[in-house]
């Protein structure tokens, strides 16, 4: 058992030219539901000498494609491969019917440093929508790719990109004897790269949950032999125990303002939802009764909590106010709906829904109570919204092992994160600010 310190890499420098006019071709995401916009990304000049994984244009291509909103037209169809503004002939790109064009270059600046620049064009009007230059270490080339993808995503959709956010999850590795595993709590970038282990134990670790500013992670660890909720500073590794009551200590969920934490305890004899004041330690019970009440998640404004209860005989999603009043059932379709959490705009829930015996990550629209499965897989768990609300990350079985998968909310983009080894579960997506 040890808490692992994490070192953050820092910083992108430099801003050479700003877009002349922002957000001219803004794609309305609501209208884009079910539609993908064709984009051309020309391989950047000077990046062929870099490892494929470090090439900024390849990262941009992968990020934008994975978001589900764009169809990246293959390079072999391009009529030209421009690298500078003066080389762009917009008619070439209008023939390809692309909405936007990305060009750029990578230049070595000596001492293992690089200058990376890109320009984004709206093809119809033939104008520049975004353009930035960065001066970075070789080790930051991937980060630059993600930052460029963020800028492009924002310029084209009006929505913030999530390509520099991070995810937390638990990997378990069999240790020979059945029922014996090694558990690792890890953090990675949104693609599953740059993995860091922040806690390792031969006892179960589960249910990581980010604090609102992404500085801390709450989780359940059994390291004492019994379950307890801990709070760990991501950067320093410093941590403290938040809940170690008799029975369950599970399902920690930070309130949006970070002052309180909802959780499921069974110290009364039944699994019930409580809210703990993290400053004073004061604990308040919000659910009562001999049923299962668990998996609390706060609304973005902090006024409501959704949770799973089997009071109807089967797990279904309920909502209550943050004081525990006004409880009402939200889901009625099927006999298993569980682990619901809010979209950042508060209009949707993502949850696990059993349909025809298959457990799918699903979307529930609060306005009209419609429930829609997002996946074809059958053992999904722990769906979590990206901080921009455009993607959902979950764990499911892929080729015999649990892996992390993202699916865009329009159901089109699907990525299996390239994490190797063990069974991966309980993913949680960081907020935008994760320092």
């Amino acid at each position: 058992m040890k808490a692992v310190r994490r070192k953050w890499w820092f910083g992108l420098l430099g801003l050479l030219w700003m877009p002349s006019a922002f957000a001219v071709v803004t794609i309305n995401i609501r209208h884009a539901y079910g539609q993908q916009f064709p984009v051309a990304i020309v391989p950047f000049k000077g990046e062929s000498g870099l490892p494929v994984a470090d090439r900024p244009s390849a990262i941009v291509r992968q990020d934008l494609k994975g978001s589900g909103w764009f169809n990246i037209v293959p390079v072999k169809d391009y009529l030209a491969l421009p690298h500078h503004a003066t080389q762009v002939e917009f008619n070439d790109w209008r023939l390809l019917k692309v909405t936007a064009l990305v060009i750029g270059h990578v230049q070595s600046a000596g001492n293992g440093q690089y200058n990376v620049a890109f320009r984004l064009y709206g093809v119809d009007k033939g104008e520049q929508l975004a353009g930035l230059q960065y001066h970075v270490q070789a080790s930051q080339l991937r980060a630059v790719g993600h930052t460029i993808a963020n800028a492009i995503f924002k310029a084209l959709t009006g929505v913030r990109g999530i390509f520099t956010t991070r995810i937390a999850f638990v990997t378990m590795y069999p240790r020979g004897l059945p029922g014996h595993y090694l558990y690792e709590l890890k953090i990675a970038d949104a693609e599953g790269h740059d993995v860091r282990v922040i806690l390792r134990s031969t006892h179960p670790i589960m249910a990581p949950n980010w604090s609102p500013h992404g500085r801390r992670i709450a989780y359940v660890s059994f390291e004492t032999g019994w379950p307890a909720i801990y709070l760990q500073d991501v950067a320093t590794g410093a941590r403290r125990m938040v809940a170690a009551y008799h029975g369950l200590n599970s399902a920690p969920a930070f309130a949006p303002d970070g002052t309180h934490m909802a959780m499921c305890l069974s110290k009364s004899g039944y699994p019930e939802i409580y809210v703990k004041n993290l400053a004073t330690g004061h604990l308040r019970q919000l659910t009562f009764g001999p049923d299962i009440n668990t998996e609390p998640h706060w609304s973005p404004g902090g006024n409501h909590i959704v949770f799973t209860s089997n009071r109807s005989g089967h797990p279904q999603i309920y909502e209550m106010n943050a004081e525990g009043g006004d409880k009402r059932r939200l889901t009625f379709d099927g006999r298993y709906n569980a682990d619901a959490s809010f979209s950042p705009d508060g209009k949707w829930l993502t949850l696990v829904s059993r349909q025809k015996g298959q457990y799918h990550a699903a979307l529930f629209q609060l306005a009209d109570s419609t429930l829609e499965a997002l996946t074809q897989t059958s053992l999904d768990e722990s769906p979590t919204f990206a901080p921009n609300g455009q993607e959902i990350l979950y764990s499911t079985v892929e080729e015999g092992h649990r892996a992390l998968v993202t699916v865009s909310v329009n159901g089109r983009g699907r990525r299996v994160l390239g994490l190797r080894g063990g069974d991966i579960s309980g993913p949680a997506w960081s907020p935008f600010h994760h320092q």
Partner: protein
Amino acid sequence: MKIYKSTMILGCLAALAGCANQQTKPTQTPASATASNSTNTQAAGAGQSSGMNGQSMALSSFPHLVHFRTNSAFINGANRKIVKENAAYMLANPTVRVRLEGNTDERGTAQYNMALGQRRADAVKHLMEVLGVPASHMATISFGKSRPIAMGHNPQAWAINRRVHFNYKYFASK
């Protein structure tokens, strides 16, 4: 080995799932090894410390696992018999302490399964109390789906993993 098989048969009856499947056997065999190990470790201490009713029940003479149906904490007839055997052992050996460890299969959500595993452990504890075992001699814990003993993603593995384990070793090793 014997114990293990009988446990498995009961577990499979409960799950209404065929257990003859050859594929599940390799994963299960080591499970019996674990059970036997803990059994042997404890049997020596517990057997010596008590000789009630003039008969000493071997800890290895009855199963230490009960099984459940999907999403249920109900203990059916065959599993009730196993609980009774464990209760009889604890009544005959009043110094023995047990940790009742609830587990679930991998289907559904992790934290709901934590609650379900707790309900299963609590249901066994309640039945043990009804049978006369003092509550203070038992503790419960749930591992949810975090400690499967069968690794497959199929109904046979799920049936094996929906279990409460009578862990006599936990407190004995403290």
